[in-house]
């Protein structure tokens, strides 16, 4: 620890403590919160534990920052210029336009815009989008990781394959299996739509493939031959559960390759929520695990926008989830299973991938950690067993699946991690996207009529309207537009450049205190196609 840092110790400590206590002050670290009794304070102060590496970056940076703040630039204001703001906001944006005719059917999806804005470094959110090639439909999902990004990364790579395989008919599975067996070229299953920053882990690819293959082999074996219609809902649930199971198994079994061995353990010990939409014609399924959310933007006949929620948050705000948890565990645990709105007083989402600490027995945890690599052993977080841990598993990855039949007035679907939903009301989200997509020309013109309006008031109103308009023109991507509002909105609901600039220029360490990672996918539907489907069936 460099000596000068000590000078700022009180500052650091305050900040640090506030993060840890979570309840004390404004803290966004909601997914995971450790009770301080289990961590000796002196250790925390002097040796940042690897487990907190994701919370607090090396102190040197932090120190530089405080120094900079305190001595160099207090009177000055560093504002990002609008182009700088744009380059930050647009760094991760991605748009995909579905070809009008994809060879099989006219798609009910026009395309989608996605984007993410990191608060953690590295970002723990992930997103995926892919078109199913052997069945119809498109898959889109957002994944919010906690305690690191390993789990969300793995889920973002693997989940859609599990879903696609679950949806495949028996013959196709056989065909694929035969191809693998005989070393022939494989049928492509998914067409990914990825931003260049969205990566796939090369090292684990073989491992993941083997697990997937085992899954479809079991599906083939289970199938009795009669080609029953595949139920999408069931397929989604199976895929979620199977993947989580595989993650758990891989960690228990380990891998001879030490890198992979560490990786599968990291994946299992970290966690991720998932919110996945499957769109096939007018059939929209949303499978949700955790507290990300899917919101449908509906345009009413008068042109106004309303939001229809297609998923339920799995957290303490959901009565049914509380009920479920209490039912799944003995009565005497009723008070401890959810504490301070967290699972066992620690975890915010009540359903998640990974997080084996909330799933394995204590014995299993200890065994795996002891036999695991040293890095794992040094990790306070993994070693630490949740309090009141009596009847595991406490956590499941089983999704709640909702079905919605698309109507012509359903214009778009917003999938986003809780980073968005905690800053903006769903109604505002839908309105902003709706106005963005239809263009501002639908903005109601102003008329003075008989009202008493001064020139100054009118000017203020007009400037505000223009600011809205210009931020619309600035973005070519609905998700970017939404992030701009989420981060930069002032109390009047207009994008305030100053605020936007401040929020985006926060140092990595501070960013997480003011906002969470935000990941958004906005899927736009083709009302004409949806309408045509409807008429057809009538």
């Amino acid at each position: 620890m460099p000596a000068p840092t000590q000078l700022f110790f009180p500052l650091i400590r305050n900040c640090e403590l506030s993060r840890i206590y979570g309840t004390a002050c404004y803290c966004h670290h909601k997914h995971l919160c450790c009770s301080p009794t289990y961590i000796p304070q002196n250790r925390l102060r002097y040796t940042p534990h690897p487990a907190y590496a994701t919370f607090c970056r090396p102190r040197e940076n932090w120190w530089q920052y405080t120094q900079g703040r305190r001595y160099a630039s207090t009177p000055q204001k560093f504002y990002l210029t609008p182009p700088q703001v744009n380059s930050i906001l647009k760094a991760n944006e991605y748009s995909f336009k579905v070809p009008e005719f994809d060879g099989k059917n006219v798609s009910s999806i026009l395309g989608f815009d996605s984007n993410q804005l990191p608060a953690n470094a590295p970002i723990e959110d992930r997103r995926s989008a892919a078109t199913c090639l052997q069945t119809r439909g498109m898959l889109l999902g957002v994944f919010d990781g906690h305690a690191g990004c390993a789990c969300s990364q793995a889920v973002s790579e693997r989940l859609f394959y599990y879903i696609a395989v679950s949806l495949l008919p028996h013959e196709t599975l056989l065909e694929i299996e035969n191809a693998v067996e005989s070393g022939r070229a494989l049928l492509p299953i998914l067409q990914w739509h990825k931003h260049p920053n969205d990566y796939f882990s090369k090292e684990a690819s073989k491992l993941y493939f083997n697990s997937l293959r085992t899954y479809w082999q079991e599906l083939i074996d289970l199938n009795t031959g009669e080609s029953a219609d595949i139920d999408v809902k069931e397929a989604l649930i199976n895929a979620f559960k199977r993947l989580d199971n595989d993650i758990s198994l891989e960690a228990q079994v380990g891998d001879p390759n030490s890198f992979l061995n560490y990786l599968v353990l990291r994946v299992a010990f970290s966690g991720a929520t998932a919110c996945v939409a499957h769109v096939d014609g007018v059939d929209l399924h949303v499978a949700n695990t955790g507290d990300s959310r899917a919101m449908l933007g509906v345009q009413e006949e008068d042109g106004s926008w309303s939001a229809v929620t297609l998923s339920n948050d799995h957290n303490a705000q959901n009565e049914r989830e509380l009920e479920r948890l209490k039912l799944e565990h003995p009565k005497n645990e009723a008070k401890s299973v959810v504490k301070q709105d967290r699972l066992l007083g620690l975890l915010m989402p009540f359903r998640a991938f990974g997080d084996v600490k909330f799933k394995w027995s204590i014995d299993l945890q200890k065994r795996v950690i002891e036999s695991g690599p040293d890095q794992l052993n040094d990790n306070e977080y993994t070693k630490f067993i949740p309090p009141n841990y009596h009847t595991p598993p406490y956590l499941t990855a089983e999704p709640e699946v909702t079905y919605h039949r698309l109507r012509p007035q359903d214009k778009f679907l917003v999938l986003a991690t809780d980073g968005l939903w905690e800053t903006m009301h769903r109604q505002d989200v839908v309105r902003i996207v709706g106005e963005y997509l239809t263009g501002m020309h639908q903005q109601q013109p102003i008329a003075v009529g008989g009202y008493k309006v001064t020139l100054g008031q009118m000017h203020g109103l007009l400037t505000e309207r223009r600011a809205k308009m210009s931020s619309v023109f600035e973005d070519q991507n609905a998700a970017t537009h939404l992030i701009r509002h989420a981060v930069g909105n002032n109390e009047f609901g207009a994008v305030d450049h100053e605020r936007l600039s401040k929020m985006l220029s926060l140092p990595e360490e501070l960013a997480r205190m003011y906002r969470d990672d935000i990941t958004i996918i906005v899927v736009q539907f083709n009302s004409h196609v949806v309408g045509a489907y409807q008429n057809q069936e009538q």
Partner: protein
Amino acid sequence: MLYRLLSIVQRQRTSPGWQTWSSTRSSTSATESHSVTLPAQAYVVICGGGILGTSVAYHLSKMGWQDIVLLEQGRLAAGSTRFCAGILSTARHSSIEQKMADYSNKLYCHLEQETGIQTGYLRTGSISLAQTQDRLISLKRINSRLNVVGIPSEIISPKKVAELHPFLNVHDLVGALHVPEDAVVSSPDVALALASAASQNGVQIYDRTSVLHVLIKKGQVTGVETDKGQIECQYFVNCAGQWAYELGLSNEEPVSIPLHACEHFYLLTRPWETPLQSNTPTIVDADGRIYIRNWQGGILSGGFEKNPKPIFTEGKNQLEIQNLREDWDHFEPLLSSLLRRMPVLETLEILKLVNCPETFTPDMKCIMGESPVVQGYFVLAGMNSAGLSLGGGAGKFLAEWMVYGYPTENVWELDLQRFGALQSSRTFLRHRVMEVMPLMYDLKVPRWDFQTGRQLRTSPLYDRLDAQGARWMEKHGFERPKYFVPPNKDLLALEQSKTFYKPDWFDIVESEVKCCKEAVCVIDMSSFTKFEITSTGDQALESLQYLFSNDLDVPVGHIVHTGMLNECGGYENDCSIARLNKRSFFMISPTDQQVHCWAWLNKYMPKDSSLLLEDVTWKYTALNLIGPRAVDVLSELSYAPMTPDHFPTLFCKEMSVGYANGIRVMSMTHTGEPGFMLYIPIEYALHVYNEVMSVGQKYGIRNAGYYALRSLRIEKFFAFWGQDLNTLTTPLECGGESRVKLEKGIDFIGRNALLQQKQNGVYKRLAMFILDDHDTDLDLWPWWGEPIYRNGKYAGKTTSSAYSYTLDRHVCLGYVHNFSEDNGEEQVVTADFINRGEYEIDIAGHRFQAKAKLYPVTSFFTHKRRKDDVELSDFHGK
């Protein structure tokens, strides 16, 4: 009728509020209009009861014409006139508009006295603000011109502005122009007053009567078809404002009146608690794109935004003008600008945002005059939102035009015949007015070119020249090269190149001029108007002898420079005519003469089937080979002797150039330099151009543009029609005696006037001025319209100017008058008078000494200079 009209006015006066306008009006006329029947015939029918229609009626009746009927589709003064902001401003860029506004001002001032109808005329003065030095230069130029015509005005400091207007933020100003006699007036009241006065003089006014179309027989107006019946008439005046375009097209023989409407917004506020003094001056903040005037104790403020909204492109505008919507979002930039200028307005309450469409024309100048295709069909419309300011003067000029056959001022720049059918595409108009409307308040710099509606007419060589760096300007829809930017050289961006000082192309044009002087240049001059007149017998010669002042009975192959004069001896056109053979003539006129000259010839030539007039403009590409080596290039390409013995100047021969045959080669260049014009049938154009360029290479040939041509012709004192010559200048006034053959034995048009003038002497004289103490790099450049001072006294204005690279001086052309010391009357100008004066040219308030010349400067010191310039490098081949 008169009674009815006055009753309208009187009732209106009892409730002068804005809101009560329409209600009072509708109640009065609706009941009576049914009982009225139209007269079966009249002498003149005027369509349009706005300020222009009533002004024309007023002036026609004042000049003594009888039997005038004015028709209005709705109610009097209910169109744009009703919504007009009511600002009368004489601070205008063009001198003819300045004169019209000045006349209007005087007219409206006395109107109340004359008619007893309150017009709300109030002499408030106007202040035009300058936020930038360039704007101040522009205002100073206007100031110079206002002063010489006797309109008081002065350039004032921002501090003075603050004294004149209490609420103005003056911190960002560099100066302003104060015109104390400018006024505000209620324009509908002015229109009603004019109507009432006209009515007293016998004009019959019918409202709620729509003109459906004009009846035409043999190119002559015979009557008008209205929704209430027909009226036979000899003259029709289209003052239909934004409906003028549609009305023009409704005839069997369509009359093209290129104008288009744009939405225009202005704001009305409720009054201040302590109302603004009624004589608070009107503010024009052109850099802020707004105007502000005092209005019933509050303010009225509008502007000309950068992104106008054109409307009624499809023409469905019948009376929709009444319920156009306010668009606050569109008005926002102007509102911001207004609040920046007058921050105290923040707390003032809004009354209304008025949306009143204004019409604009393709060149921001109004349209007046007689149709080129229908005789007796007159037009006055397209006022570019200056209908009130110009209305009085415009009505007067048009009335003069109809009564005397020509107006008392040169109005060519407003003449309908400057446009043709080619400007009447709706798409063109829509795009062009979107550029014109913001231009109202844009800085007006010399040599501005419109950016929209371009590349309509082009020479077949356009792409070739463009690839070689040509920069283009447009005349009458035709693209003409200005100069050629050499490869690896960059010019400023369009906005940055706006300057009143030395332009960025100075060196480029210099090298082109030098090449014209020393080697050979080629200029594409295809835009020139070209007519062919042929006949079976001598009819062509006879009619041309009657129409033109010079003797055209010359041997075949000769070219004659001649004026086409009107009865007063003024130039209707200045052209070159080549006698192709005994019975056929080839006539070359300026580009913008295509419509006017055609109309003139058709009007005066006998209707004789054996006489054929053909517009061959499109058939020929014209290349001007200028320079001492042009002769070498041509002789090499034609294997024909081109020496002065075989091919004297002003000669025309049909010969082959390269492989192409039938090229009309003329030994003239329109500049006074040696060289040839090549009139090439268009299919040969590319071939001949390529041949000329490749053969010319060893003679140092290069492309040149009109800026080089302009510099060459002005330093040689070549006056151009449309700039230096116009319908009010005679050959005797501009050194064109040699182009007039008074004794050619035919009483040509204008001969009597010239004879008289020869006897009496001329009252003005075109002279050439060489600026002496003018620093080309640092001083403001002359443009045109700069006042000329002789011995410290105002003597006239310049008409064109250019930098002469040979003289290393600026050269201006301009007319010198001799205003009497006592009463300002014009006196005879003699050569002696010109020569014995000390001259100064006033450029934006700064006077530069100038030498006046009546004849081109002899090339004496030109030669000397060139001798000095000889360098060793000149011995190298190029």
